[in-house]
């Protein structure tokens, strides 16, 4: 009896050391959220048109593999907004303003692309940087409001999403150089302002995705290896403790929002400066007074990647993948909006997937234990488990 118990405890420890590592929990909760999101999407499709539901689900899950170039192309802007939201999350700020910063970046990039005459090798680089500047400008505002006036960044961001959107649409429509009224869209950018294409056939994928991934890795280094990153995370965990330890809370808030805004702005620039499939043309922007969806998708991307820069890279590619699949689902009669719905459901569940997981794990583990041990020492383990799960809950918060 004694022996058996000791043996069991050892195995138990090993099992837990895997399941309890931070990476594993966030991965498993992300997968859980994705699974529930897809199940929900399937039920919606089943409700809307039963005979095609299975085919629709297949398109959503596997459709993207046929258009891998475009998956990366559409992943670029949402990767940037995802990094932006995730970066602010690390500091405990909710950057719902990624949309406005994205739109602002898009406009600044557009402006630099049309209005400035620069040599071909330099023009697109300057335009990208202009986009970053635009995003920074719109990102720093919620930071300033939060730091100096104690206004919640969520409300500020939302208000400035609207202000930015109206402002950009007005300025785009007001310029005859950028805008063609009869197409209600912007004109094609000059060739020199377009980001060089990677040359993959049948897709618009360009250098932007490479930059975006590099930026993700760079952010990872900042967060993990620099003092600034450490302070940022410390403030995110416990604001008061961080300030007590002498970290400059206000400066860090402003700096974080500045960087987050710049990241979203880059997303807008990468989107806007892309060449499109037809030679000589480029992406266009349609000013129709709607808040950019890519900013909100960024929230999903960040949450799914657990705000970790590397995780965000993968989750952006995944979301882009099911988005491509979603457009293919229209082949069997479903509208692409089904994906927005699935993404929203994924966010909903990922907000509490961690807790759900620990509950589930607790149930499974106690079942396993009951089987392995017989009834003698189950009670003992149950008590132990309860303690563990209490620890988990704290970790999840």
């Amino acid at each position, binding site marked *: 009896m004694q022996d058996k118990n000791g043996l069991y405890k050892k195995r138990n420890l090993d099992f837990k050391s895997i399941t309890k590592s931070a990476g594993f929990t966030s991965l498993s909760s992300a997968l859980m959220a994705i699974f529930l999101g897809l199940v929900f999407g399937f039920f919606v499709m089943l409700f809307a048109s039963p005979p095609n539901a299975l085919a629709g689900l297949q398109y959503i899950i596997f459709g993207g593999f046929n258009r891998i170039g475009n998956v990366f192309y559409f992943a670029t802007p949402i990767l940037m907004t995802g990094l932006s939201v995730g970066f602010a999350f690390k500091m405990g700020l909710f950057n719902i303003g990624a949309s406005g910063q994205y739109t602002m970046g898009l406009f600044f990039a557009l402006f630099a692309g049309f209005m400035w005459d620069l040599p071909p090798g330099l023009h697109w680089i300057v335009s990208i940087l202009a986009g970053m500047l635009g995003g920074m400008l719109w990102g720093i505002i919620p930071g300033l409001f939060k730091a100096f006036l104690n206004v919640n960044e969520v409300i500020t961001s939302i208000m400035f999403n609207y202000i930015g959107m*109206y402002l950009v649409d007005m300025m785009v429509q007001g310029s005859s150089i950028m805008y063609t009224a009869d197409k209600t869209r912007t004109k094609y950018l000059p060739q020199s302002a377009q980001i060089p294409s990677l040359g993959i056939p049948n897709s618009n994928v360009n250098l932007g995705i490479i930059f975006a991934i590099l930026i993700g890795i760079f952010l990872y280094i900042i967060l993990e290896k620099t003092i600034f990153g450490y302070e940022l995370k410390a403030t995110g965990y416990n604001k008061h403790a961080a300030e007590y330890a002498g970290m400059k809370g206000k400066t860090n808030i402003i700096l974080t929002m500045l960087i987050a805004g710049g990241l979203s702005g880059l997303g807008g620039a990468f989107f806007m400066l892309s060449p499109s499939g037809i030679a000589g043309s480029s992406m266009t922007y349609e000013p129709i007074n709607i808040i950019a969806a890519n900013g909100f998708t960024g929230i*999903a991307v960040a*949450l799914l990647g657990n705000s970790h820069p590397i995780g965000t890279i993968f989750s952006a590619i995944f979301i882009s993948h099911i988005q491509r699949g979603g457009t293919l689902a229209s082949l069997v009669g479903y509208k692409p909006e089904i994906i927005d719905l699935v993404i929203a459901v994924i*966010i909903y569940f990922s*907000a*509490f997937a961690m807790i759900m997981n620990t509950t589930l794990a607790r149930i499974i583990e106690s079942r396993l234990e009951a089987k392995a041990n017989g009834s003698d020492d189950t009670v003992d383990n149950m008590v132990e488990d309860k303690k563990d799960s*209490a620890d988990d809950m704290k970790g999840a918060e």
Partner: protein
Amino acid sequence: MNTIYYLIQNMLPVAISLLLVALGGMFSETGGIVNIALEGIMLFGAYFAALFVYFVQDSGLNPQTILLLGMLVAAIAGLAYSLLLAFAAINMKADQVITGTSLNMMIPAAILLFSKMFFFSDGITTRINFYIRKVPILGDIPIIGNMFFQRTYLTVVIGFLILIIASLVFYKTKFGLRLRACGEHPHAADSVGINVQKMRYAGTMISGVLGGIGGFFYSVGIMDGNVNGHTGVAGFGFLALAVMIFGQWRPGRILFGALFFAFLRTLAYSVSLIPFLYNLGINQTYYRMMPYLATMIVLAFTSKKSRAPKAEGIPYDKSSR
């Protein structure tokens, strides 16, 4: 004078919609749950009510009866939707802002999906006219009649009634006091035997009811019976949150805030009718930004000494005393 009448007549439906939603936010937040999802709740309520109106509009019922029934439908829909927030925030202790955001994203997508599949458009437009040209007798009173009882909607009267009821519940009942306790200091409330979870559920559900009704009133009074997934409720849920903060979580001041924002918005959309503003030659888009800018200015001045419920946004955990 006619311009002033026009502004007031157009402002009231806007103000009522904002007022109801802001009151909803107040109930939810004084209970301790941050309700960013108001935008989604509004749209959800509005859509279901519009569906209802769409199917009964040819039945020959009195338009005002349909309005009341539609209001009921919107209230139930809003309540149902708010339960999603309550479940995540209270039972699952999820981040309330994130949950709210996801609920906001879900509805426009769902509306576009279903409207495109079943109505072949972005939303629903109902044909019925809820507009009241002139209320008998009351409409003939000089000045006041012109302002409040001509070219109006039934929604305005209902809105003021709800405001009175909400204030009474908030200040004069045991429930209101307990709810506020749960948002200020849930542990203290718990220690005297108040069920914090239940109270928070109640607060969120009330916000669902008011949010749903507010959404329906928005579609009736401002969009002429149209609900679509593209424009949704144009950020009214968020504006209502700003109104609530402006009103410092108190019904009376919320009314004042709602009127103020509604006035700005109405002004922005009727610039072309006011010769003085029109002749200034300012691009109308600037006026459209005004409610949002005004929100920021107001918040900048009020947030320092904010009287926000102390425990809002924090999941209640018995053990973390």
